């Protein structure tokens, strides 16, 4: 129908993974509401359609199929889980529907997009390679760490971030003394932390889940290593909630994030305020990236001057989008070049140490 732009959102909304989907949904909803309240895009309102993926590929594909065939959407944002995104990619390609990913970190998603193959997949989310590099570099050069222990989530995100870390660590003469991965939902880290206490690591490289960081931090306090071993990596070390859980453990923590609530830009501040007012809780990273991706899409539609999916796609490839954290452009693999913010917790508050953008080195096929 003319007058509305149908936008599908595939995200886990039920089951254990709902804790990721909930924020994504709210972020996207807020952006859609703001855009519509402001009169829409080129005079057209956006209609957001939710579809539950439960975090499994089968359900994700069904969700996408339904959005495409039943609801007739031309644009899909999704999913949080990489394996779901990978499974939706060919579906979107087949149906020639624009798939904008906002939160999956598997590098393959864009290895196989753009010149890599899938023309309809775009990713507005940083790759872990850039992130791993700047964290390792900062930890070695600014903090002088050489002995590291790995404690990351056992998922493509945690595993690939560590794989990239290992690629760069030798450049900084760093070594890894122990390597552990935790399952989602894990609550007992005492054994691993005791091991780390005993093996003399200076920092724990952690690419993990936001809700697990407080547990680890508290157990660091319990084992007496808070303040002695530093957390580095990514896992919402900087949110108020996390810091409050164990201030002594998080003091000095180093994190590379695509965004953080404290980021000092008016748009970002406004978003945090509005989100908190609407949903009674502070937004997290997932909320932000979904909010931002809806805005990015709106910007592309505006630039294309029409909601025609081919035109929007072409606009996206050439876009210079001003996000709250800086300018976003897409490379020939449809991967966003995003600034990555590096911060350190000082006196219980995140303090920004710089923003970095880097190009991805794609493996030769």
């Amino acid at each position, binding site marked *: 129908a003319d007058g509305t732009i149908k936008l599908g959102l595939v995200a886990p909304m039920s*089951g254990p993974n709902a804790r990721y989907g909930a924020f994504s949904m709210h972020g996207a909803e807020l952006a859609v509401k703001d855009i519509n309240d402001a009169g829409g895009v080129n005079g057209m309102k956006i209609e957001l359609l939710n579809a539950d993926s439960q975090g499994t590929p089968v359900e994700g594909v069904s969700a996408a199929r339904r959005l495409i065939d039943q609801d007739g959407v031309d644009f899909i944002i999704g999913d949080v889980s990489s394996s779901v995104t990978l499974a939706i990619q060919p579906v979107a390609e087949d149906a020639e529907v624009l798939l904008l990913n906002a939160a999956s970190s598997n590098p393959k998603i864009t290895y196989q997009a753009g010149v890599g193959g899938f023309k309809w997949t775009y990713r507005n989310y940083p790759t872990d390679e850039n992130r791993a590099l700047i964290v390792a570099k900062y930890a070695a050069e600014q903090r002088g760490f050489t002995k590291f222990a790995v404690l990351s989530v056992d998922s493509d995100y945690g595993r690939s971030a560590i794989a990239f870390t290992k690629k760069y660590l030798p450049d900084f003469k760093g070594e890894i003394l122990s390597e552990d991965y935790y399952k989602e939902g894990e609550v007992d880290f*005492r054994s691993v932390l005791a091991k780390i206490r*005993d093996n003399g690591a200076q920092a724990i490289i952690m690419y993990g889940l*936001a*809700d697990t960081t407080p547990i680890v931090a508290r157990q660091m306090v319990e084992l007496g290593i808070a303040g002695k071993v530093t957390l580095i990596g990514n896992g919402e070390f900087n949110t108020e909630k996390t810091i409050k859980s164990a201030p002594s453990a998080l003091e000095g923590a180093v994190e590379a994030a695509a965004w953080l609530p404290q980021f000092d830009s008016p748009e970002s501040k406004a978003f945090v305020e509005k989100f908190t007012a609407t949903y009674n809780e502070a937004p997290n990273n997932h909320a932000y990236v979904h909010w931002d991706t809806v805005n990015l899409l709106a910007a592309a539609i505006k630039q294309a001057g029409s909601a025609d999916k081919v035109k929007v796609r072409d606009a996206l490839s050439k876009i210079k989008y001003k996000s709250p954290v800086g300018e976003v452009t897409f490379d020939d693999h449809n991967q966003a070049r995003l600034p990555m913010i590096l911060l350190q917790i000082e006196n219980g508050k995140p303090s920004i140490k710089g923003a970095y953008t880097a190009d991805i080195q794609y493996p030769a096929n």
Partner: protein
Amino acid sequence: MLSTIVEQTVNGIVTGSVYAIVAVGMTMIFGVLRAINFAHGEYYMLGTFGAWFAIDYLGLSYEASIVVGVLATIVVAYVVGQLVMRRMVGAPAESGVLTTLGIALILQNTIILVFGGGYKFFAGGYIEPVSILGFSLAQQRILILVVCLLVFIGLELMVSYTRLGMAMRAVSQNVECCGVVGIDVPQVVLRTFMLGAGLAALSGVLTAPVNVSVYGGMGELITFKTLPIIIMGGLGNVRGTFVAAMILGVAESLVATYVGLQFRDTVGFATLILMLMWRPHGLFSTQARF
């Protein structure tokens, strides 16, 4: 080296205590219904949510939140028990699987619907570390250990000597014969169910301070942790459950230390499978001839 092993064993025992309290409720429910309760972890989750709600919304103290969490769960268990579990007496194992999976979905997703899918932060409890035996532990963990011992002593006495305890065992063995001796089977089932769910909730509330994050889907993992324990302990066996939970806790702890945390969840089932090779009916099961 040796001190690490001792420390990890102590860690394992503390973890085991948490498992033990949840698992014993599950094993008792299995006893009377002959059904694996796939929704058991959801009562753990409900207890935690109840306590979180009491602290965050009602502004109650942690101690009061324990009571709120456990009571709220028992009320839910009463409703579920009246409407569903009572009718499962004598039903085949398969329908038990479907029913409890259904209940798990309902409870979990209702909580997500009401409180949102995101994770919450649990603020109460005694998280200050203390040092005993040269190791440092959160006070809360000592509390868990003590409560676990009390719960088991109480249950052991109850199962062996009280009328409800005897009736629970009777129901688990021969439902038809219960009618003959005058045991009110649905009522025994209901009470056992409420007791089991209450224990799961208690475990949830006690661990919440150290586990910090609270979310709707947290029960599922607990259910899967509990399953190998109740089998190892010999289904329906209170004492066996205690020992099995400790074995699993310590094994997990040692594996996490010496092999890698990523293999931790596998330990339960690997231990279970190895043990079943050696004793096909669990560590402590008793069973009658054909």
